[in-house]
């Protein structure tokens, strides 16, 4: 058995995935096994230096630490809610690091790892979940759009952005993020039709984390998601979403094809949401703990760590240094969160329109006068 056939014969560990209605598990692009072995793939390879490998590890470890800290902050009442990326770090770091600076990302609400790769300050993501604003970063400067909470809406935005790139003759692409549940939305299907019809330079990056809140993939699709792309008329590929190298390779290739005028690609990153849907969710109501235990064996960070140690690319000192950096990051996030000032009440009036209306300006003034009437201990 050749190495490459081993790589494509990954047994799918998801309970129910072998239900009779599902066709045989298709090929899964993998370059790093769950045990941390580098393997070849006939179509995809990735050229990464030892230094880049260490950087990928650092990215993975730091975003996980950010995520853990944010979850703790929510539990302590500092955030309204948090949508954890736990388990999806490799999918997000791999996709984010595949992007060129001028490529544009269109995230959902869970792409903290991609935000990290675009240089977005974690506190600018935290401020959304704290209820201070709807995301504190500049989507133009970072090439990372604001989070979109309405499922699937951003896939059309990405497609339109790609149509703009096309008209401008820019050698860039849009990367639309979506979940497995989102693939059921009409708008997502419209986005794929538009992308195909106009051969738009957009890549649909679907993190199939097996659930839409409590609803398992089987309710959204009777075929593996990547196979949907064929029906729209462009390539689809399933990649091991817990393998940062494979995700990097597959996303780079798709973006290169888009840059090159070859139109859209659909990437299904096969992964698992190791935490709750959000901090408001209770997954014990709808899934078995044993499922999580199985997926822990495919942890995206552990496998890279195993590979880096075994191959001598990184040593104890390196891992200790990353750990120390993660500690510092956590401290910075915690301090920045608890010290984050509340916005002034007038903020809600200030950017509703590009050109303020007289009516809203008047309402703002009334609001200020009303608020002022409480100041200085005025009792009503």
């Amino acid at each position, binding site marked *: 058995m050749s190495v490459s056939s081993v790589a494509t014969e990954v047994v799918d560990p998801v309970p129910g995935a072998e239900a009779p209605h599902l066709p045989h598990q298709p090929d899964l692009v993998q370059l790093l096994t769950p045990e941390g072995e580098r393997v070849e793939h006939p179509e995809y390879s990735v050229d990464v230096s030892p230094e880049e490998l260490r950087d990928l590890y650092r990215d993975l470890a730091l975003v996980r630490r950010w995520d853990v800290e944010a979850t703790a902050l929510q539990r302590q009442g500092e955030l309204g809610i948090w949508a954890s990326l736990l388990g999806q770090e490799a999918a997000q770091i791999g996709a984010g690091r595949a992007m060129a600076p001028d490529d544009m990302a269109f995230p959902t609400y869970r792409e903290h790892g991609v935000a990290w790769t675009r240089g977005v300050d974690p506190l600018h993501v935290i401020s959304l979940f704290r209820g201070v604003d*709807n995301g504190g970063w500049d989507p133009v400067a970072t090439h990372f759009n604001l989070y979109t909470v309405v499922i699937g809406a951003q896939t059309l935005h990405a497609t339109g952005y790609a149509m703009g790139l096309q008209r401008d003759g820019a050698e860039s692409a849009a990367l639309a993020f979506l979940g497995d*549940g989102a693939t059921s939305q009409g708008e997502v299907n419209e986005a794929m039709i538009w992308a195909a019809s106009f051969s738009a330079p957009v890549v649909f990056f679907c993190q199939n984390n097996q659930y839409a809140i409590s609803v398992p993939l089987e309710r959204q699709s009777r075929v593996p998601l990547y196979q949907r792309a064929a029906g729209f008329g462009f390539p689809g590929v399933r990649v091991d979403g817990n393998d940062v190298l494979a995700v990097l390779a597959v996303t780079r290739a798709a973006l290169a094809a888009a840059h090159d005028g070859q139109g859209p690609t659909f990437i299904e990153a096969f992964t698992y949401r190791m935490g709750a849907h959000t901090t408001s969710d209770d997954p014990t109501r709808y899934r078995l703990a044993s499922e999580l235990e199985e997926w822990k064996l495919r942890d995206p960070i552990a496998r890279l760590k195993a590979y880096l140690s075994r191959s001598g690319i990184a040593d104890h000192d390196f891992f200790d240094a990353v750990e120390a950096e993660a500690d510092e990051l956590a401290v910075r996030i915690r301090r920045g969160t608890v010290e984050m000032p509340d916005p002034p*009440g007038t903020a809600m009036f200030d950017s509703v329109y590009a050109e303020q209306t007289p009516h809203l300006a008047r309402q703002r003034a009334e609001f200020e006068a009303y*608020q002022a009437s409480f100041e200085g201990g005025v009792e009503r």
Partner: protein
Amino acid sequence: MTQTLTIGKALNLGLRRAMEDDPKVVLMGEDIGRLGGVFRVTDGLQKDFGDDRVVDTPLAEAGILGTAVGLAMRGYRPVCEIQFDGFVFPAYNQIVTQVAKIHARSRGKLAMPIVIRIPFGGGIGAVEHHSESPEAYFAHTPGLKVVAVSNPVDAYWGIQQAIAHPDPIVFLEPKRRYWEKAEVDTGAPPGPLFASRVVRGGDDVTLLAYGPMVKTALQAAQAAADEGRSIEVVDLRSLSPLDLDPVFESVRRTGRCVVVHEAQVTLGLGAEIAARVSETCFHSLEAPVLRVGGYDTPYPPSKLEEEYLPDLDRVLDAVDRAMGF
């Protein structure tokens, strides 16, 4: 037969009873089965009635409402849950162009006994799209009826009445009040669904509210009473059709009317009510009808929602203005 119930549990029991009474009742929505809904309103129903009657749907609101139309044509009574107010819009086309119009289009040959349950309103510290008050869009649409419950009694009986009713109903649930408790008489026959109700008597000002704002209005009336002011509070209950006769009767006595809702003031329910009260009670009015509502901005990030939402002080401020006119 009385029980102490929260609004959420009252809805749960009301749904259960409706499903027992009529095998054609089918519940549809995202995460309503195994999970029991994100607010647990459908908790336990899939286990007891099966997954043909409590359907975890694909993640597609247009699909939920569009297939509800077809099911209704086969004699089913779909009860559709929209997970949060801000996510009804993918279904808006189906609701406004189809659900609302099919009865008229078919000259009454096709009925659309569909209930669209929507947890609505703010105050829970959520992120964007989880705190909206979209009632005016639906009340503006001929063919739809719109009700908003404010307490466990109306939740328990209202959901059953809505399901039994032949027209499509947008059924608004005050999400921040889901955990409010009251005694519910599960044996007593209910009053009508499309009727407003005076929930506190008074002589100086008529204060109108619905859904989550009823509690705020009652608190304001209590605070005003401590200052010697007598406020009559009306729970509108039905937003389309509006039942304003009790309101007119009240305003003719008080001469003053204040309407409060969380929704943005401009073209909200208050605008329609102010127009009708002015038309009908013009000679009795001592002051213009005043509105208290959300500012004309997008619902703000949660750190600002307390300043955005009408509260006791803002209601009393309007009462003062009405009195001082």
